[in-house]
């Protein structure tokens, strides 16, 4: 049962215009309904939605620092089991809180098999502290700690950590990547994730207007290009069966990565160097050659 006509995430919060995170949170909660406890890692979502004494959350909400949303969710789940209560326990973490500082706790939570849905809203850098590179920042992106200059014309030198596949290697019941710009796929995956028992993980791409340096009115367009260029593939993995990863959206014709890059200030420098754009394009091509038939 979904609560599509109800709101559990109230407007009036301080998230930026054009930020995709509120779209993600709003729809996860609409699918989950009121019988839910939310855990929130430190980050934009936490500070911008809960400034005391106001809150945007109409469900019980808890924040216990940065690196441990998964450990906190584990504790809530154990307590709920001890009380014989059945409810949705949903953790929201950004990319820093999930793929970097919170990764150990996440790995432990999944390995132990807690009945928790962990939602990563991935805006590809530490945006709350002011755009520092994370393990989820893509190759070639400028951030305040992967700056572009004469000695480094590229920005971030390493590719994005493939967190969904890393998580899937722990054999959770359900893992999917999702993108709010592919709305039906996004909604279906939230619904599906909620229908499973055990540890579940949604990796959802979330644009950041200030960090990606884009026009706030272009959020959905840019997110759409992330998938249409093949840079952010949409797939799902059930019971950790990575060999049978299922791609849920296959662009009929891939757009060149350049179309995605040119809409964002964080890649502006890269466009002056076709060889680096070419490297990114080749990485995408390789990924699809390797996994695209699944």
């Amino acid at each position, binding site marked *: 049962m979904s609560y599509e006509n109800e709101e559990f995430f109230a407007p009036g919060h301080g998230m930026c215009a054009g930020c995709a995170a509120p779209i993600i949170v709003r729809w996860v909660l609409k699918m989950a309904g*009121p*019988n*839910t*406890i939310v*855990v929130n890692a430190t980050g934009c979502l*936490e*500070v911008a939605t*809960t*400034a*005391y*004494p106001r*809150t945007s*959350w*109409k*469900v*019980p*909400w*808890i*924040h*216990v*620092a940065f*690196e*441990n949303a*998964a*450990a*906190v*969710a*584990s*504790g*809530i789940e*154990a*307590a*709920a*089991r*001890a*009380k014989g209560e059945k*409810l949705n326990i949903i953790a929201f973490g950004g990319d820093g809180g999930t793929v970097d500082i919170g990764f*150990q*706790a996440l*790995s*432990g939570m999944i*390995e*132990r098999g807690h009945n928790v849905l962990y939602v990563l809203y991935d805006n590809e850098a530490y945006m709350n502290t002011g755009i520092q590179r994370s393990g989820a920042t893509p190759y070639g992106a400028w951030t305040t700690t992967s700056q572009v200059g004469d000695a480094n014309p590229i920005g971030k030198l390493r590719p994005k950590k493939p967190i969904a596949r890393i998580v899937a290697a722990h054999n959770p019941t359900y893992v999917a990547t999702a993108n709010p710009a592919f709305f039906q796929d996004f909604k279906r995956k939230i619904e599906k994730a909620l229908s499973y028992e055990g540890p579940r993980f949604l990796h959802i791409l979330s644009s950041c207007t200030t960090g990606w340096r884009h026009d706030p009115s272009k959020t959905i367009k840019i997110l759409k290009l992330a998938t249409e260029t093949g840079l952010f593939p949409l797939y799902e993995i059930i019971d950790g069966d990575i060999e049978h990863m299922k791609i849920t959206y296959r662009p009929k014709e891939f757009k060149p990565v350049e179309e995605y890059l040119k809409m964002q200030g964080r890649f502006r420098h890269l466009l002056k160097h076709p060889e680096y754009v070419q490297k990114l394009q080749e990485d995408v091509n390789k990924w699809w050659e390797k996994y695209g038939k699944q």
Partner: protein
Amino acid sequence: MAKMILTGNESAAWGARLSKPKVVAAYPITPQTSIIEKIAEFIANGEMDARYIRVESEHSAMAACIAAENTGVRTFTATSAHGLTLMHEMLIWASGARLPIVMSVVNRAMAPPWSVWTDQLDSVAQRDTGWMQIYSENNQEVLDSIIMAYRVGEKHNILLPTMIMEDAFILSHTAEAVDVPEQKLVDDFVGEFEPAFKLDPQDPGGFGSLIMPEGPYMEFRYKMALAMDEARKEIRKVTEEFAEVFGRKYPGLVEEYRTEDADAIMVVMGTIASTAKDVIDALREKGKKVGLARIRYFRPFPYEELREIVKKADMLGIVDRSYTFGYGAALYTETKGALYGHTDKPIKNYVVGLGGRDITPDVLVKIFDNMLKIAKDGVVDREIEWVGLHGDERWS
């Protein structure tokens, strides 16, 4: 009541079992490990009805306890040394969130150099976290203190967590006869956990939200300070009630031993007290008037008791099994702080037994002799003295 032969760690596990936490989240570390092994055994045998989260770190252990307690159930964990200091951030969170979590801590030296033996720096370094701290002298006290800690901490006018210390190996791995109380008596004494607030879909609330400088951050902290002061009274009351129910009388925050008419009183925490009591008896036989004040609660700090104790002697010797670099060990500076303006009597700091170095009766006899000399002369020879350093002829 059943008499059992238990190590300190088994006593801690029994204290937890009898208090019926619903969630235990723990990570192994020497010399704490046998606590969480024993609890695992109790749960596997169906003797303890708790969800057991074998977390991947101590940081997550405390995070999971915070979360479970905030969901409305009683929790327990145990750790030591590096595990405790890894938890530091979460310790402050637990008290700030006003969650009466109870934890056993086996006092072990911090590295480097790597040492698993006893030393109190690990928990002394948690002084400012907002936890109540109990230092145990024997295994019976380890067990009983856990039961009393739940009773005190869970009172709605207190709502603060408690850590109960035992010296590594000296208590943790040494067996002695311990009275294990009847479950029914503990059930009645501790009662059901009644959370003051909780995560509840029927009554949604937010925990851990952002607060601006003009918000009531200071007021939250002030209420914690008041609760810690309130705990002082509650501890005295609960130890009395405990004595009525279980027949064992604990001395509230400080235990005094032969302090009446003493010329010099030693102030200590932990198992040094047991050796000191024997030494005091022997010295008293020889006409040397010495006594002991054993600090059970380092937090809340028993400043009122110490102001009375100092009246009974001509000097205090503060014996610390840790050091706070920069100026004096913690028990010394705390005691001096509490007594400032209340006494002109000499007070000296003795730093002993770091990294588990044995504190034998001989060492304590020498310290007492030094204390008596200071009591007689009225002059402190050295304000802070490290006792028994290699090559130091004063103590060899």
